């Protein structure tokens, strides 16, 4: 018998992966829902008193963190390297991996949407906005050091616009691509994360003494500059995750003793757009390389 067996349709594979991925995400979703419930209970007294909900500290990086961690839940139970069940199925291995990645991404977008909806509802109940409509801009345009004189700060009206709502989605997507690349490209992703963290910490510790020892001044500032470039620069990670609303603002202490969130720049959606293209592109390339490790075992 030599009859050619039929392969599944890609649409069916995707739908099934969406369903199966949900099974992997049930517990993390329940934990998330529990935490959101807890936060609602904590905020309830403020909300019922009609007072403004302090949303300055809302975790703007949370969608990004969700995106970075989600691949662990999506792929955690699969034998990514080796003859795992997934790879025995009659679907091109690279295509199958991407299908599963897309399935996870669909749930990520749903999760971010639910999170943002919850946040908007919580804030809307108190008549506030998630993002401020007036920002306290430091006139000098540089980050303040020490106590801030209120005279050096002026209120500037700001309309974040509807595009600002996409920031959480794009940030989560970029982080999800990078996280998926790490999970699919390495056998032990957590070891890589811990290793890179330790390497960064050690580099920061030894760069100062080494620069003194060998007279290389640049070495002392190199780790900080690199971190600034990756995270806080114009097209850094914060630009894609928060449109730089984190790295352009801080809670400063005024000379009057009050605390005030001050800004030394207005978030620029053009910068966010470029950063999104750069980081998403980088994530997509990294992911392609990682998925290629699992491609069909062809000999060239």
């Amino acid at each position, binding site marked *: *018998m*030599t*009859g*050619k*067996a*039929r*392969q*599944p349709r890609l649409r*069916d*594979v995707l*739908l*099934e992966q969406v369903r*199966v991925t949900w*099974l*992997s995400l049930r517990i993390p979703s329940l934990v998330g829902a529990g935490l959101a419930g807890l936060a609602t209970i904590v905020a309830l007294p403020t909300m019922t008193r009609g007072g403004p909900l302090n949303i300055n500290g809302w975790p703007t990086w949370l969608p990004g963190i969700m995106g970075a961690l989600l691949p662990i839940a999506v792929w955690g*139970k*699969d*034998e990514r390297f080796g*003859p*795992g*069940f*997934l*790879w*025995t*199925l*009659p*679907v*091109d*291995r690279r295509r199958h991996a991407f299908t599963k990645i897309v399935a996870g991404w669909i749930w990520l977008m749903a999760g971010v949407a639910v999170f943002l909806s919850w946040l908007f509802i919580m804030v809307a109940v108190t008549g506030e906005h998630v993002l401020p409509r007036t920002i306290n801009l430091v006139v000098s345009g540089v980050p303040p050091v020490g106590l801030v004189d209120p005279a050096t700060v002026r209120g500037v009206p700001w309309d974040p616009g509807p595009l600002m709502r996409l920031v959480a989605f794009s940030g989560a997507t970029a982080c999800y691509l990078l996280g998926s690349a790490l999970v699919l490209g390495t056998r032990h992703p957590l070891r890589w994360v811990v290793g890179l963290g330790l390497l960064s910490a050690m580099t920061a510790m030894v760069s100062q003494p080494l620069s003194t020892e060998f007279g290389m001044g640049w070495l002392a500032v190199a780790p900080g500059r690199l971190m600034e470039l990756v995270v806080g620069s114009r097209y850094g990670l914060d630009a894609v995750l928060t449109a730089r609303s984190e790295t352009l603002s801080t809670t400063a202490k005024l000379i009057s003793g009050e605390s005030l969130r001050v800004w030394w720049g207005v978030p620029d959606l053009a910068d966010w757009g470029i950063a999104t293209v750069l980081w998403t592109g980088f994530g997509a390339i990294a992911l392609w390389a990682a998925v290629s490790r699992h491609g*069909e*075992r*062809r*000999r060239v």
Partner: protein
Amino acid sequence: MINGGDSGRSGYAVTTHGLSKRYGRQPALDRVDLRVPDGAVYVLVGANGAGKSTLFKVLMNLERPDSGTAEVFGLDTGWSGPEVRAGIGYVPERQDAPHRAMTCARLLQHASTFYPEWDHAYADHLVRSLAVQPQRRVGGLSKGETRRLQLVLALAYRPPLLLLDEPTDGLDPVVRRRALGLLAEHLADTQATVLVSTHHITELESLADHVGVLRDGKLVAQMPRDELQRSVKSYQLDAPDGWAAPPELQPSGLRRATVGRVVQCTLVGDERGVMQQLAASGAVVRQVIPLSLEDSALAFLPEDPS
């Protein structure tokens, strides 16, 4: 390699050409030329680590060979992996099931998505016959229960080729018999080709029609079972002191035991020709003993060092 029986290249469900694979310095497959005729039940025999599972993985395109090619129904397994896998029912050597949080029923539903030919009624029949409990969680199954589930997963879409790596391993005798009965039923219904590795050749004796022997990654013999049993025999000889098997028989001399002047040899070849050569060497053949399929195949494997 002792190769018997067939000629030409057409009519094979599985062929490999010079297939080699190493893990570090350890050869897992060494220039293997496998020929599994279409519709045959080909039993692959070999000690642990002989390369049987590696061969199956190469056929599933789960492993890339270092050299050589493998074809399933004429399709190169490297270049047509998905098409090849669509026609294969695979029971892996390992008995760890995927998606441990799923119930068995959900896992079967999941698998059915990937095989358009999935036969739900037949799958239900297999589930009942192999006493798979649909509501049990996969992660809670024992080795034997997992094996039963793997058999359902492999058979339920009636694939034209079954790759069964120790399929009855971990099954109790009752279920083992039932599983073999289902396999026989399956073969009668589908005319499928089966490539099966096993340490229990006797249980497949009624199904097997071809046998291959892997030894240290080399395919040292492959032939139809009748030919194997016809050509591998045990010869009981009276031999003079210092007798040695004639040089022309030595390459096919598999085993030898000596008790006093009586020598017992397992030899491969046409019985009449072997006897003539033995007589010419001064030995007197007292008895020619036919071997069971298992003994014929095991004769190609190294003897127990003990």
